[in-house]
């Protein structure tokens, strides 16, 4: 029996070479070990060059029951529910072309392996941009961002992945090529499958191309950094700002634990209870100036300790540092945990207070950042296994009591295996039916499906 399986696998690896060319298939530990996820090392890595090749690989994988792990930039491979098994990584690095760029329609069709930041460079030459700005924008691919529903600070002005992706080309887990959505604003016939693929984590198919909405580059983009003595002052400003005619493109909160590096890059410093807000405004010079003026008076009226408008270069440096917070906070420790809470927008201030309470009662330093316009909050901490489990339990309760939920993004493998990564919901059963219907042989990213394990 085992021999037959082994033979089938050998046939499969040989087929990979026939489909993509032998030079696009890697085997051997040196080549495959860096693609290890959740302690599971794949046996092979294949780099297809077209949607057709992806379809052929998936068909062959079904024949030999080979488990495939789709891979873009790999920035979110270590987040979320644990992978159950992996045999071959299907990496889209050879699919990074702009297929079509229609400036007058404000759409572009790109292959899924295109790195977001590389796309932005090409778009900028046509005075356009794609507003999706997740934290790993410099290394994450468009396909990966769609598959993991990766959003960023600018969501508050431009919307989330679901608002910015008009259509996707997908190879289903049985190897069919489907095009769902399109390049028109109205393009759903029947069910909205395009949106189903957003955040499907490679469990329902492999996205190979996407049609994206584009916007003209703003004339100016400015970051305003405001330091407050405590979070309550900052949230008062956030509340008033959200209820004003202003349209900032980002309102981010950073506490003193998470914000050391950013404050330094921005040329300021934070003491213990202090927090700062980064408010970004973009548009015409007049628009941005109005934002700067109004936000400054709002901040001054609410005990702001310092207000800084960063010039373009310094602002982009501070944004980069801000984006790096997630990983800088986790970097020094293999016992680090990054969690994400989602609460009603008006309850975000309360959630920060709850986090601080947990921090004090458990005697653990917890760093906090938040997308203030969306009610999303990140926590960063490091401790031993038992304590991480206990603290995440308390944070889950805190978020639930405010009408939201708390989920674990990054954590030591032992914690991710023991604790429910995602909140309890009553629609997981339907999702399981979907997964079984789409992927009868369970060959795509088994275990990654939301709610699949616990």
């Amino acid at each position, binding site marked *: 029996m085992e021999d037959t399986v082994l033979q089938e696998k050998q046939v499969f690896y040989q087929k990979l070479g026939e489909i993509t060319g032998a030079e696009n298939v890697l085997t051997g530990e040196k080549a495959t070990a*860096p*693609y290890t996820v959740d302690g599971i090392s794949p046996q092979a890595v294949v780099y297809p060059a077209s949607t057709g090749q992806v379809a052929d690989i998936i068909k062959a994988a079904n024949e030999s029951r080979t488990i495939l792990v789709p891979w873009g930039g790999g920035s979110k491979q270590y987040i979320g529910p644990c992978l159950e098994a992996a045999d071959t990584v299907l990496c889209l690095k050879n699919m990074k072309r702009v297929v079509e760029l229609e400036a007058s329609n404000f759409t572009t069709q790109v292959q899924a*392996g295109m790195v977001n930041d590389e796309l932005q460079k090409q778009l900028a030459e046509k005075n356009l941009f794609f507003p999706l700005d997740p934290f790993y924008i*410099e290394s994450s691919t468009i396909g990966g961002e769609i598959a993991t529903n990766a959003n960023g600070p600018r969501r508050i002005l431009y919307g989330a992945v679901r608002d910015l992706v008009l259509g996707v080309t997908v190879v289903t887990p049985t190897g069919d090529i489907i095009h769902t959505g399109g390049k028109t604003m109205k393009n759903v016939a029947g069910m909205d499958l395009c949106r189903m693929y957003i955040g499907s984590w490679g469990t329902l198919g492999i996205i190979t191309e996407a049609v994206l909405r584009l916007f003209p580059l703003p004339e100016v983009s400015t970051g305003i950094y405001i330091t407050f003595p405590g979070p309550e002052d900052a949230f008062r400003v956030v509340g008033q700002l959200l209820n004003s005619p202003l349209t900032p493109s980002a309102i981010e909160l950073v506490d003193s634990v998470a914000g050391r590096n950013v404050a330094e890059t921005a040329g300021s410093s934070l003491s213990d209870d202090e927090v700062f807000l980064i408010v970004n405004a973009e548009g015409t010079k007049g628009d941005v100036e109005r934002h700067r003026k109004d936000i400054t008076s709002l901040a001054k009226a609410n005990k702001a300790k310092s207000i800084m408008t960063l010039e373009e270069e310094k602002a982009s440096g501070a944004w980069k540092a801000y984006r*790096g*917070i*997630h990983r800088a906070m*986790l970097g020094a420790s293999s016992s680090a945990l990054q969690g994400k809470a989602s609460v009603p927008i008006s309850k975000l201030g309360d959630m920060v207070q709850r986090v601080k309470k947990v921090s004090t009662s458990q005697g653990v330093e917890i760093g906090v950042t938040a997308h203030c316009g969306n009610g999303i909050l990140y926590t960063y901490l490091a401790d031993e296994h038992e304590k991480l489990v206990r603290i995440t339990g308390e944070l889950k309760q805190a978020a639930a009591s405010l009408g939201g939920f708390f989920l674990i993004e990054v954590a030591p493998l032992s914690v991710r295996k023991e604790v429910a990564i995602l909140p309890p919901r009553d629609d997981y059963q339907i999702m399981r039916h979907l997964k079984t219907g789409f992927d009868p042989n369970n060959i795509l990213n088994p275990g990654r499906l939301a709610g699949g394990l616990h």
Partner: protein
Amino acid sequence: MPTVAEELEEVLKLCNKCGLCLAGCPIYKITGIEWTNARGRVALLRNAFLDKKVELSDLKDPIYNCLTCNGCTEHCPPAVPTGEIIFRARQELLRQKGQSWIQRMLFHKLLPNPEMLHKATKLLRLADVTGLRTLARKTGLTRLVGDAGKAEAMVPKVPASEGLEAIKRMVKKIDRPKYHAAYFVGCYAPNFAPEKAAATIRVLNKNRVEVAVPDFACCGLPAAGYGDMESARDLARKNIDIASKMKVDAIVTPCASCSSFLKDYAKLLADDSEWAEKAKGFAGKVRDISEFLVDIGLSTEMGELKRKVTFHDPCHLAHHQKIKDQPRTILKSIPGVEFVEMGEADMCCGAAGSYAFKNYDLSQKVLERKMGNVARTGADTLVSSCPACIMQLSCGVGQQKLPVSVLEIVELLDEAYRNARGKD
């Protein structure tokens, strides 16, 4: 003595696989293959050093096809020092496998001795003037030695020169000097480009800096790059000893690789009780030429240069020394110069010391990307501040037939100062 594993444990564990390093890795941008980026290399070295799952000798490719440009560390939130980890791995490989005869000759005989190195390059000149080099190219002889042969075209023509002695003769006393500097000439200028050394001396003099040219040996970086830290330390001791006999305000060099490594002497000799303090003193005096000129207040008595200029950041300047503003300040201060920033200015050009000789094809692909960025600026002058970069960039400009001149920053400054004199 701690083992390599103990030494590296902390830094290897710093990587949390977020992949932001991918954005700064010129090699990964070309290959897209995980083991060629910092995240992949660190994972493999962790497997070798900490988890003992793989032999270090099986990882020669990931260890040697790294440019050690530190582009990854720039993008890494916890700043994993992948370049340093790679250097340490090379050192360990060398300890296990020993050194080739060519490396032994280079690091133990030629580089410590400027006179012998000059004699060796004279041989190359002989090949130039007798037409042997052309013959070797035409007959395909160069191709027989693999990547090194392919990269042979990168080596510039060897000029008729008398090496370091000739450069020493360029030195002169100046009126009321404000500063005294020891010029660390490096291996390139005496053997391949004495005119660049002349420009350096003139520029320093123009800034009221009196220059001395001592018999410094190689800085040691080439040896360290191949894991031969003992040779690097010997060279460091030799150079520190020479400097200790001089009274200077600074040790200045226009070579970014040299200044970067010279500044590292303190770290290099930290465990040597006899030399640690002296090394610290020496390293504290080292300045890259742009850094030094901006520090002392650059003389702006310049004539106009009608040039559209772009700047390529040498990795050893931008990433290793964090010197990015000073060269731009200098270029923008030259009257008539239109400065235009190129895309990915601080991304490696693929030279990386002798990298091009060992990994020619990859190096060329990195260079092609750089040339694309240069061409898009429309600049007529490409400036940098590192001989290896200059050689590589010149080669790229030639291959792509771009109408661009490639100059060291001191050469452009020299031209501006000389134009001012012309006006008088």
